[in-house]
């Protein structure tokens, strides 16, 4: 049985400066007049532009690609402050968290030069093209096909749940480039496709909160040049796996509803009661250790490790936690939730509860994560 490795110190005094900086930036930014629950699902290109120009996107990347050469913990502080403030961080989130790092690891110099500086400026946004109508948890079964032609690739197939494809510039696709029925994980490749390419139809899908965040993508003889391939042909699966520790361990896996808890604390200060103190305490006693776990992963990611076991533990515990906030407030304490209300608390409660079902689905379902944990425990 493997034992997860977490080393978590609650206070890193050397991070105080970057924390003060990003707080000051946010305090002066117009967007946070209206904080959002699940704020990394709120797309605001102008906000991301301001953030990028201030140096808070691509923070850990080399300066020659527009990065800031900051530590992974400094970046961690910035993104957790964005979430805690409910800032509308969706536009750049995926490019900053995973597409950019994938390009850094697997991209050619030309690919990096072409995309990374624009991402870091907060002007270039990316989507994840993994899921398909018939391939969700069983990602290795994807069928969208990229076929080599004389001078590039032709892509045919469908992607679905592609968040912000209608507002982004690139989609990083997982495509089948050759067949090996005995080993489905082989023969997959990652291809970076511009979203304005001919032959690509983007169809909106409205989510249960009434928002148009994700889409269905139809590829009909979409042509891209040979250098759209990211990394090695046939190695797409391994590349995608290495993306997952970044995707699963961050603070967005437990802070999606935090602004709601903060708003509840404001109410509880006005009308103190033992019940509300106990509820806040029970949430804080779950949150603080989770954050310690997540920060400890960030430090290891910064050293080039891939702590996938630990990341799965964070997402498993984190999604339960962020789902419970809205659930307990709605169930035990509060008046009606209303997504249109001027009352901040009612609106945030509605946003948190309406988004909560997605928390344990996106980025790998609870069942898939428990399977990963079980494998590392030695059970499979």
């Amino acid at each position: 049985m493997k034992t997860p490795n977490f080393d978590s110190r609650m206070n890193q005094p050397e991070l105080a400066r970057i924390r003060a900086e990003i707080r000051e930036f946010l305090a002066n930014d117009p967007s946070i007049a209206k904080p959002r629950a699940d704020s990394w699902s709120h797309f605001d290109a102008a906000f991301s532009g301001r953030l990028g120009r201030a140096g808070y996107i691509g923070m850990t990347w080399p300066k020659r690609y527009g990065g800031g050469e900051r530590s992974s913990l400094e970046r961690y502080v910035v993104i957790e402050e964005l979430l805690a403030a409910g800032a509308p961080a969706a536009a750049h989130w995926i490019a900053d968290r995973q597409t950019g790092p994938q390009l850094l690891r697997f991209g050619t110099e030309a690919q990096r030069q072409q995309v990374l500086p624009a991402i870091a400026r907060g002007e270039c946004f990316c989507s994840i093209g993994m899921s398909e109508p018939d391939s969700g948890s069983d990602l290795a079964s994807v069928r969208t096909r990229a076929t080599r032609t004389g001078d590039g690739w032709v892509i045919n197939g469908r992607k679905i749940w592609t968040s912000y494809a209608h507002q982004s510039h690139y989609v990083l696709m997982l495509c089948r480039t050759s067949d090996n029925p005995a080993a489905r994980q082989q023969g997959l490749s990652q291809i970076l496709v511009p979203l304005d390419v001919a032959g690509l139809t983007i169809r909106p899908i409205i989510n249960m909160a009434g928002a148009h965040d994700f889409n269905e993508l139809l590829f009909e003889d979409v042509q891209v040049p040979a250098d759209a391939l990211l990394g090695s042909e046939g190695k797409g699966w391994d590349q995608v796996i290495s993306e997952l520790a970044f995707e699963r361990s961050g603070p967005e896996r437990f802070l999606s509803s935090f602004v709601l808890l903060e708003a509840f604390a404001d109410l509880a200060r006005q009308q103190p009661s033992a019940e509300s103190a106990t509820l806040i305490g029970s949430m804080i006693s779950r949150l603080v250790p989770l954050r310690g776990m997540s920060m400890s992963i960030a430090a290891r990611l910064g050293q080039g490790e891939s702590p996938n076991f630990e990341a799965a533990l964070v997402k498993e515990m984190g999604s339960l936690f962020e789902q419970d906030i809205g659930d307990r407030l709605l169930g035990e304490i509060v008046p009606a939730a209303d997504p249109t209300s001027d009352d901040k608390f009612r609106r945030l409660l509605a946003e948190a509860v309406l988004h909560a079902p997605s928390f344990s689905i996106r980025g790998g379902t609870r069942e898939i994560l428990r399977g990963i944990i079980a494998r590392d425990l030695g059970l499979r």
Partner: protein
Amino acid sequence: MSDIAMIEDTVRRTLADALTANVIEAAEHGAWAGALWERLEAQGFLQPAALAESGDLAEGLEIEAAVLRAAAASALPLPIAETALAGWFLARHHLEPPTGPLSLASFAANEALSIADGRVSGRLERVPWGRNAAGVVAMAGGAMLLLDPRAAAITPGVNLAAEPRDTLEFSNAQPIAIGGAADREQMLCRCAAVRALQMAEAAARALEISVEYAGQRKQFGKPIGGFQAIQHQLAAAAGEVASARVAAQQAYFALAAGQNVVFACAIAKARANDAAGTVARIAHQVHGAIGFTQEYQLHRFTRRIQSWRGEFGASALWNRRLGELVLGAPGRTLWSIVASGI
């Protein structure tokens, strides 16, 4: 191996060798495991406060944690946590610890001893190994005291794990020593951190036993660990264990730094309490009937973590205290406290 890892390893080996079925069986029936105590005492790990002779607080705490981890992972039926804590409090008050096992009061808010003319009266409930202790650290009139259980009327009791929990009734008793002023909550926090650490490690061991068992026990022609329902239960337990361990680790860091002490200790104990219930339930479910037998070792861990949930603060107490602490901090947002402590 670091010095700390070496200490943990030494204690683990000693216990693997010396904590025999006979010793466990006798302890379950109330016998004092004296030979084992003496062996551990001879190794010199039972007084971490004294071990950290350099006066290095952080080092003393690291040694304490290492010894307690090893002991909790073995379900050691001896009051070494209590002895470490009592020794720690005595050292801070520059009082000499008596030789032998030590114990403590519960430091619950409603526990009141009175002191008049240097003599102590009142009742201490559920003192761990009160009958065996050479001294019991308690509080009266805002000061720390070292009491002699032999000066008390003792009503024996036990917890779920058959560990002695005795009621001590003092009437006009002469304390062994009287220390200076002490803060009840600070003492409670220090004890809560210790229990939380023991709980996290004992829960980790219960998980480990369960994972091993699930790999070996076959039904329907395959190991039960191959069934997804079992895998997912154990994965959920692994999350609980990991976060309880991290919370205990954070409490120890806070104690070493002398910062965020109430905050971190409250979190550690509340987290351990909640994790303990889930882990015990899952561990037994995965075992089927065998886990419900006296012969099988799982219950040595699950009975302990269940018992310890109520000691030095149940979840209701700590969650409420934590909520009041964070809500009562003037001008602080919840987030600023989560991010930087309080």
